């Protein structure tokens, strides 16, 4: 090491409070996600190309069966959202568990910024990087399978996308605390939630095909509702939507608000419990 320099004599750096503190913490955590995604090109293959193979199978199957072309578009939209669902589970749900294992969680808990700012940063980074990766699915759909979408209302598409992402990632924020509280073996829970949610959300087929189960899952799983709403915006009547679009948007809004509150509550509960019991945030305990 070099000899101590003038740093010790410098005036202390400014330490912002309030909104700016939360903003800096959030953007810094977002930065980690984005940089992480860009520095590991292999992840594009594992997180974007591989999940798209399932989508390709369904498109080819519908084509082989001579199903209407809209079914291919249904599968492509499902394939794109599957990347987000995987990110919600593995990139959000299991994240606090990994942070704890790395010894990072206690540093977050000892810092003055709020934990919600950290989780929001993780979510924003997840949305941004997964959106970039979903370009692979969109490209396959448009240029390889020549999927057609009807004239798209960009405003409605943006609204449905944003509100679906908010609902999904707020669910991920909730899961991240719950996994740490109740499921140390977080990856088993992630695995258990992958395929069943794909099924009840109608990832590769119109959810209407599930009948009553479709309505139940729309009421419980934001992915199901978001998927159906996105298909309705992109494909209109050909999407064979479950509920009228405004109702689905309203439902997604309720999901988003409810999960954001739930995430905050779960996080506060996690922190209180960890301080009472002396575990959860500390790797060694």
């Amino acid at each position, binding site marked *: *090491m070099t000899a101590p320099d003038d740093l010790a004599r410098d005036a*202390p750096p400014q330490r912002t409070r309030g909104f700016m503190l939360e903003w*800096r913490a959030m953007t810094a955590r977002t930065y980690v996600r984005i940089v992480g995604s860009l520095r590991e090109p292999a992840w594009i293959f594992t997180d974007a190309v591989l999940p798209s193979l399932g989508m390709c199978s369904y498109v080819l199957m519908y084509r082989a069966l001579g199903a209407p072309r809209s079914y291919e578009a249904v599968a492509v939209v499902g394939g794109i959202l599957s990347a987000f669902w995987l990110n919600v589970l593995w990139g959000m749900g299991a994240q606090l568990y990994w942070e704890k294992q790395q010894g990072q969680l206690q540093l977050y808990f000892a810092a003055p910024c709020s934990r919600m700012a950290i989780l929001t940063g993780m979510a924003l980074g997840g949305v941004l990087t997964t959106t970039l990766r979903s370009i692979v699915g969109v490209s396959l759909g448009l240029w390889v399978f020549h999927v057609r979408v009807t004239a798209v209302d960009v405003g409605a598409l943006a609204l449905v996308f944003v509100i679906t992402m908010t609902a999904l990632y707020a669910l991920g924020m909730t899961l991240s605390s719950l996994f740490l509280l109740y499921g140390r073996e977080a990856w088993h829970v992630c695995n258990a939630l992958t395929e069943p949610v794909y099924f009840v959300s109608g990832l590769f087929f119109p959810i209407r095909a599930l009948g009553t189960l479709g309505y139940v899952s729309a009421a419980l799983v934001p992915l199901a509702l978001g998927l159906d709403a996105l298909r309705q915006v992109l494909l209109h009547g050909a999407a064979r939507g479950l509920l009228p679009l405004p109702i689905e948007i309203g439902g997604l809004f309720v999901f988003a608000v409810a999960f954001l509150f739930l995430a905050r509550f779960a996080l506060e509960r996690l922190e209180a419990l960890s301080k009472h019991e002396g575990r959860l945030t500390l790797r060694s305990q």
Partner: protein
Amino acid sequence: MSHPAQHPAAVETEALRRTFKASKRAAAEGPAEIEALAGVDLRIERGEVFGLLGPNGAGKTTCIKILTTLLYPTGGVARVAGFDVVREAQEVRRRIALVSGGEASGYGILTVRECLWLFSQLYGVPSRDAWPRVDRLIDIVDLKPQRHTRINRLSTGQRQRMNFARGFVSDPDVLFLDEPTLGMDVTAARSLRGFVAEWVRERAGRTVLLTTHYMAEAEELCDRVAIIDRGRVLACDSVPALRRQVQGGQHVELELRRADPRLLEGDALAGLKPAWGAEHPDRGTRTVKFRLPTDTPLVRVLRALEERGVQVEGVATRETSLEDVFIAVVGRALDERTP
């Protein structure tokens, strides 16, 4: 937000207690609760470097976890910079930083510069201030050639130095260093100590609470030291004052063959309170340390050992060190775990 007194202590604890529930297996064989802190009273003034010394399991880390708002106490009060660690945790967090030795914090995908910047953001340091500060800290910890290296490619020692630098990115009022030089090479650790001493000296009010296993580190850095064992503070004073408390007699270190602890019992050896040190399997010996009262000649001890068939391979006497103080106060060496 409440306002602390005009000149509060940097750290203050009153009858601080913390118990943990024992695991089911441990509870079946012993008490249902483990008392990690059993009423700790401390007052650390602003501008002090304060050392907390104790064997493994003594309660040092529990104390630091409470003071850094990571753990609730089960009794008593703890204040940092005048703020209560339970009721005013947010105010405490604005003023502190924590560095734990041996931790592997930071995201492997980030470079050293980015990782330190990330932590500065959690404390709200604007980037225009944070980046130059990060660069200077990187210089200080001698990581300039690695500043653009991903941290998962750093050696353990390099990562340790980066963690040390992390503690200073926000220039905290109170810095908690929990075994900060663990795993560091001697030169780096010495330089680190130099920086800590200068950092505290250069501005009134900066305070460091240090736990360490290295007695020399505590002697070199700390204005005062508290010796803690089984959750209780057994002694608390400056190092010279602690030395004076145990002076009177020589400090003797013997290397013994056939070093059965029972052989050291008996009249001639009574009252020595020997502390067993490391074994030397290659030589078949073990070290034992004790303070020899002024009225007991060393030769009498050596003769008594000879009569018991214990072979003395080496004898050393020296000045009172902090380690001697520790042994005198705790009754065993620092590397011996709390029974």
